């Protein structure tokens, strides 16, 4: 199925949890913030969220800025 991750269409396995998707991408829960369908989700919730077709994910982090 397809979801949108940071504005890009991405194919993922049916029934994958948000936690497993992020883990597969090698992302450290302490270092990123995730918005799932425009709702900010804390890392404790990642295990309970099953991704669905056409879901929208924003995966963000802090960078240098003025």
């Amino acid at each position, binding site marked *: 199925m397809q979801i949108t*991750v*940071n*504005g890009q269409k991405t194919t993922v396995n049916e029934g994958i949890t948000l936690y497993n998707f992020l883990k597969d*991408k*090698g*992302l450290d829960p*302490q*270092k*990123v*913030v995730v*918005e799932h369908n*425009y709702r*900010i989700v*804390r890392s404790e919730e990642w295990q309970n969220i099953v991704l669905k077709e056409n879901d929208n994910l*924003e*995966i*963000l*982090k*802090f*960078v*240098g*800025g*003025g």
Partner: protein
Amino acid sequence: MDDKLVIAGQELSSRLFIGTGKFHSHRVIPEVINRSGAQVVTVALRRVNLDYPEENMLNYIPDGCIIMPNTSGARNAEEAVRIARIARAACGSNWIKIEVINDNKYLLPDNYETIKATEILVKEGFIVLPYMSPDLIDARRLRDAGAAAVMPLGAPIGTNKGLKARELIKIMIDEIDLPVIVDAGLGRPSHAAEAMEMGAAAVLVNTAIATADDPVAMAEAFSLAVKAGRMAYLAGMGAVKEYAEASSPLTGFLR
């Protein structure tokens, strides 16, 4: 001298705020912050590159600093509000620098959208420091919306041109009962000193430090300039005069 800057009830130890963009290496940032004495430090929020996840900037900011995320990338109030909410969830800081820009050439902030975003975020409990084009009337609107300070630009972002908006900022300092923090465009310690001598509450510097050959030494130079400028402001500077006025007595000459 008891001269603390207080923003939103919080006493700050330094009147120099530091931005963390454009450094060649993140590793220099902790030392830059320590040598500058800065307590308020800005960061930006961006999408993770899933192919090359990089390190989190927060790891380089020493404990005890106030993290002030900016809303850079926002083109309108709605986007700024969204970024601010995400940033607060991610770093736990209530401080937010609102930056709404839809002009790509001069990166001038959109005051109208900035005011709208300020109204919303103040109601949500944020400590809002808006980056703005220097304008007294808009600064009053931001004050009425509950901004904790206003941050007019000295010159366009990253130009190092100095206090080009001097006269408009001076009017804001004279008329607005809020800290006025000069943000953007200050390229040299003397520019920072000039802003502080004029009565600015603080300055925010990024490019001038980040792109110096020795960013750590430049951070300290800015720190000294900010202190010198503030001290001169408090000391009360002598009047400027059109014609010469002798410093030595004009009587008792040996002739």
